[in-house]
């Protein structure tokens, strides 16, 4: 029995048992459903083994949306607990677990896969490529991310969730203070997903540098592709730091090393430092692609080319370099002295300059534009003012002396939600609405879409602006309750209502998808937004090979210029196309990774060794495998092309 004791949840409650039952039933329902409708074969052939960047993109999207709801439920629980003083809805331990998983899920398992979805779906189409450089590796990236995310998500029903915050600082996350396996989940699940992310970085850098359509120079790439390139460069430089950091944390917890111990020469501050050496660039990994999407959306719907293309690129390069020299602004109060604090204050404030350049470029793009308020554009228009507010409070936080007042209060929480929600989340949802027709061949309903944006912004303002105020008044973050005497009650109630409104707006998004699946017209053509870049030049739905003939590019907005001047970008005749083969290996290997991670978390060593051998076996198999891909013959391409042309 001892063996099974470790899987029990340390602080069970009715909610946890209820979710156990719910998870169990859902899993059974899904399995039965797939069997009943005889979809196993289809699932395996078309999705689990696919190496097509568009399908992998869609799988990222589905995962991100699922995680958005998981993280959203966490958020509502947190706000409900704080809605009134001395609330007893959650006890402190449970509250700790919820804010820890909320942070990790939202940043690593919602925002990251969401941008991965855009990288995957958009970048190859935008640069006129037929796939990414390493399609098989791309599938491995996805499945590793997916298994990492699943592993993290089972923590609250098996063994207990991490409870040391998404930053997981030691010594709090060490064995002395975090006694459940929760922090093991943190270390290992993120490690597995992180390896996948690193592989994505390598893949997309290669793709963008080496696989652009003939004629497309670096300085003619669409802005989203530029942002993807820079973001992936940051990934390759920042994620290895996380790899090392998590390995050290894992060893401290499992093998009693002394990295972050209090005595024996350990250094708990190293965790904080390395965490933010990765962590700060990480927030730019998220925001740069968001900027890229807004650039596409704004220039499309202002019907003008992007103002200041070169300065847009330059500012991203500067931001990416600076993002590695600001990390200590996350712990000004931890005693590194005035000199170091001043250095990091100045670098942090300096980052606001290139960010400001971008804001002005967007404004100048709008200036004299023929603005059309579609849903994606509405997201962008709400982004501009709200994000600017978040940037300004960021600069406030960057003043190291003043930060003693703000640090670890609700003010900080308001700041980063203020940049992440209007910045990253709006870009994701706006971009989703923008690319939806390219993926599925019909538009999302505009009316419901605009309602969603407005509700989200109203909810956002109500939920987070009050936190600036209570934070300045001294309400600490990560505290599960406060007394009535503090006077924080009313504003926290407002924040709860705001969170509720945001929840409604997300529900509306789901309803919109349902509604549009049923009622949206299907004959929308290839270019419903009258857009400017190559992804809109090919058919909808996009054929497996993306472009029957490679496009010839001469300018930044190849497709727009072609439409305006009437010249042909697809010159030449159709030839047979080489495509990569599907493979089950990425999925199988990632499943073994899941088992490996699980057995490490619970220190089940025999299983850990067996699964490790399994992983190595997959690599060996791959090394010896002969896989030359296949060709799509000309007749088949011509047939597909005629069919798709007819569908217009």
């Amino acid at each position, binding site marked *: 029995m001892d063996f099974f004791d470790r899987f029990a949840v340390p602080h069970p409650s009715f909610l946890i048992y209820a979710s156990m039952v719910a998870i169990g039933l859902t899993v059974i329902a899904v399995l039965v459903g797939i069997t009943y409708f005889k979809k196993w074969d289809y699932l395996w052939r078309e999705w689990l083994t696919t190496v097509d960047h568009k399908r992998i993109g869609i799988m990222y999207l589905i995962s991100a949306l699922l995680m958005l709801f998981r993280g959203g439920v966490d958020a509502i629980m947190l706000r409900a607990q704080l809605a009134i003083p001395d609330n007893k809805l959650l006890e402190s331990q449970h509250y700790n677990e919820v804010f820890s998983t909320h942070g990790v899920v939202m940043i690593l398992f919602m925002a990251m896969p969401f941008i991965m979805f855009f990288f995957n779906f958009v970048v190859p189409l935008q640069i006129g490529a037929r796939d990414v450089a390493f399609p098989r590796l791309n599938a491995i990236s996805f499945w590793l991310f997916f298994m990492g995310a699943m592993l993290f998500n089972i923590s609250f029903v098996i063994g207990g969730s991490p409870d040391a915050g998404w930053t997981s600082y030691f010594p709090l996350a060490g064995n002395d203070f975090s006694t459940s396996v929760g922090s093991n989940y943190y270390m290992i699940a993120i490690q597995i997903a992180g390896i996948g992310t690193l592989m994505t970085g390598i893949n997309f850098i290669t793709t963008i540098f080496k696989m652009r359509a003939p004629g497309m120079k670096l300085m003619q790439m669409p802005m989203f592709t530029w942002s993807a390139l820079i973001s992936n460069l940051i990934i390759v430089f920042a994620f*290895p730091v996380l790899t090392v950091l998590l390995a050290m944390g894992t060893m401290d917890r499992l093998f009693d090393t002394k990295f972050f111990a209090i005595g024996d020469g350990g250094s708990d501050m190293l965790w904080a430092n390395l965490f933010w050496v990765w962590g700060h660039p990480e927030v730019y990994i998220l925001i740069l692609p968001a900027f890229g999407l807004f650039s596409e959306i704004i220039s499309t719907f202002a019907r003008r080319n992007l103002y200041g293309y070169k300065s847009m690129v330059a500012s991203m390069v500067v931001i990416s370099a600076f993002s590695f020299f600001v990390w200590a602004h996350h712990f000004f109060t931890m005693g590194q002295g005035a000199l170091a604090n001043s250095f990091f204050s100045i670098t942090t404030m300096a980052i606001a300059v290139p960010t400001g350049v971008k804001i002005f470029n967007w404004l100048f793009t709008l200036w004299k534009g023929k603005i059309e308020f579609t849903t994606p554009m509405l997201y962008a228009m709400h982004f501009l003012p709200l994000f600017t507010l978040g940037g300004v409070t960021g600069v406030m936080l960057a003043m190291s002396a003043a930060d003693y007042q703000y640090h670890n209060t609700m003010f900080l929480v308001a700041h980063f939600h203020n940049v992440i929600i209007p910045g990253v989340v709006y870009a994701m949802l706006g971009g989703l609405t923008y690319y939806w027709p390219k993926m599925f061949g019909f538009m999302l309903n505009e009316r419901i879409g605009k309602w969603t944006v407005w509700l989200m912004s109203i909810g956002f303002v109500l939920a987070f602006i009050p936190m600036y105020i209570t934070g300045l008044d001294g309400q600490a973050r990560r505290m599960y309750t406060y007394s009535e005497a503090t006077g924080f009650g009313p504003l926290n109630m407002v924040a709860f209502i705001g969170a509720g409104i945001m929840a409604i707006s997300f529900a509306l998004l789901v309803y919109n998808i349902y509604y549009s699946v049923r009622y949206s017209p299907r004959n929308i053509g290839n270019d419903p937004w009258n857009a400017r870049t190559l992804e809109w030049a090919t058919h909808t739905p996009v054929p497996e090979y993306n472009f029957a003939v490679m496009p010839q590019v001469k300018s930044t907005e190849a497709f727009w210029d072609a439409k305006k001047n009437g010249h042909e970008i697809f010159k030449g005749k159709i030839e047979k196309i080489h495509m990569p083969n599907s493979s089950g290996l990425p999925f199988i290997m990632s499943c073994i990774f899941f088992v490996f991670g699980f057995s490490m978390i619970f220190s089940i060593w025999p299983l850990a060794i067996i699964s490790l051998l399994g992983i190595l076996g997959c690599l060996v198999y791959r090394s010896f495998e002969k896989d030359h891909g296949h060709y799509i013959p000309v007749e088949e391409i011509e047939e597909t092309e005629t069919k798709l042309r007819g569908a217009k």
Partner: protein
Amino acid sequence: MKIDHSLPLEYSTEENRLKIFGFWIFLGAEIMLFATLFTSYFVYENRSGNGPTGAEIFELSPVLMETILLLASSFTIGLGIHAMRLGKQKAMMSFFAVTLVLGLGFLGFEIFEFTTYIHEGAGLSTSGFTSMLLTTLGTHGLHVTLGFFWGLFIILQVKKRGLTPETANKSFIFSLYWHFLDVVWIFIFSFIYLKGMM
């Protein structure tokens, strides 16, 4: 696959060129990985708690042997790639085999070194310093071990399939990896051992 005969075999197809480029990016990530380990090592250098310090446990002779073996293996794999470019499959395979044997010798000495440390009371959980030392060395050693098996499989493939664009590409990429491990070792030798013994 279109094969471009004006280029060396390992670069001759589009896929091969992509793989080599991608591997360079991967090495960039590896540099960051080891840079993080070195930075952390400098933090722990003097944090030996109640355990031994570097000066107390480092010994020159095994380290020197390891260095000589690994540097020599970097030389032999270079010869192997040279032979491959000349199309001499036999010579190439022998050079690769010598490389791997040297690598194995390196690992042997490293294992010996580790057991001595543990006998002298410098185990993984003794102090911040020993944890970091063994982790940094261990990460490098693990890379060499994986490299050993990888190289072995490549030799088997060259033997079975001959020098094709594919096998040449794999061999070339493997040689990049092996050289890289050598470079890392030079840093380990200078900044961990020499600095620690001075």
